[in-house]
């Protein structure tokens, strides 16, 4: 599965993931405590500038993440214009754009394995009181594994169907698919067990 980590190697890729996440939390708190239009305009412009620094390819990927918010932006603007508070509307929009932009920035510059490390670190106190956090790590890996295989299994089933039927797979495929997914999980459970399972 493709993660959202950018293949464009930035300097921020090498910063510790935990620091980036903590900074993000702080920034979000500040954003939501401020109401001034000027402040938010400057912050958003700064965000765009940061996105542009690593080059055009990175910028484009980043902007794509923001463009996805357009329906929300349109409605908030129209709504606030209707109720006669356009400035307040702009503040809401800019704040949201900056918050999402900063969060995506962390996402784009941090690898999945680094994020899992942060999870490990955060879970350390749990480990100390005897909770098995290995399950959490394996769980993350398993989700990453199941997601493409589910799509695969669906495609396999559809192929098996079309090998014997001129019609498109119908709703009748839903149950076989569900059962296939469950069986897949049972097989994975057994494969896990064969290699030590959660004993460690």
């Amino acid at each position, binding site marked *: 599965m493709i993660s959202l980590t950018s293949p464009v190697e930035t300097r921020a890729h090498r910063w510790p993931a935990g620091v980036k996440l903590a900074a993000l939390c702080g920034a979000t708190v500040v954003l939501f405590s401020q109401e001034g239009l000027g402040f938010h305009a400057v912050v958003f412009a700064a965000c765009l500038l940061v996105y542009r620094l690593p080059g055009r390819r990175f910028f484009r990927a980043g902007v794509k993440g923001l463009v996805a918010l357009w329906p929300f932006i349109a409605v908030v603007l129209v709504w606030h214009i209707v109720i006669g508070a356009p400035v307040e509307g702009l503040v809401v929009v800019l704040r949201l754009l900056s918050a999402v932009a900063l969060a995506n920035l962390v996402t784009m510059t941090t690898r999945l394995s680094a994020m899992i490390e942060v999870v490990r670190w955060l879970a350390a106190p749990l480990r100390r009181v005897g909770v098995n956090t290995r399950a959490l790590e394996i769980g993350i890996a398993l989700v990453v594994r199941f997601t493409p295989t589910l799509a695969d299994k669906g495609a*396999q*089933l559809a*192929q*098996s*169907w*079309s*090998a*014997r*039927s*001129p*019609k498109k797979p119908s709703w009748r*495929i839903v149950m*076989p698919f569900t*059962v296939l997914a469950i*069986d897949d999980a049972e097989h994975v459970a057994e494969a896990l067990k064969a290699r030590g399972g959660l004993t460690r």
Partner: protein
Amino acid sequence: MQGEAVISRSGDPSVTFEMAGVSFSREGRALLTGLDLCVPERRVGIVGRNGSGKTTLARVLSGLVAPDQGEVRVCGVDIAKDRRAAIETVGILFQNPDHQIIFPTVEEELAFGLLQAGASKPEAERQVADILARFDKSHWASAATHQLSQGQKQLVCLMAIIAMAPKVVILDEPFSGLDIPIRAQLTRYFERIDAALIHITHDPQALRGYERVIWLEEGRIKQDGEAGPTLAAFGKHMTDLGGHDDISDLAG
């Protein structure tokens, strides 16, 4: 050249299959490259190393995936477009039975294709009972498919295809999990049936009596022709490759 090639005897139903300029790629990797084949023979083997593209070719031949380029006809039928004609023409045995079985009971699994091909319910039931009896497996009718052993699953898949009586049967390593008696019986059975056979295998023995063998290597045809010489060349090459003493000398 590639992609411009045209099928020569287009639409001739007596030709088992024909392909012209067929290429197929996934995620930027070419899995099949520029295949041109006209195969009037009715017993055809496909051999090649792991990952050489045999299963991919089988999927193209059965019209389950359309090639990126080129044309494919099986018994004259444009297999990727005319799906209704296609299922009457080609039956494919998947390499992994777990990828083929859809329904919870053996009965339902066997009836599905027949019903889809237009048989009435009682007609399909009769045919299912027939095929189960022919393989002496009548007691399997209401068995749960997921409880069968690997070889038993494979046999169910085979019965499902045989029941549909297609003109061309594609077998992707049909015997890999089957026991010796079933293998012997099926071999004899396949010798007798009218359908043309396209048989993918790692076992040159399984292709005794075949007319033609196609040897794939990295998605291209490495050699193609009469079974005897092609199998001999293939066998020799494989034994040479396998003969190295150190496992790490092995490429592929």
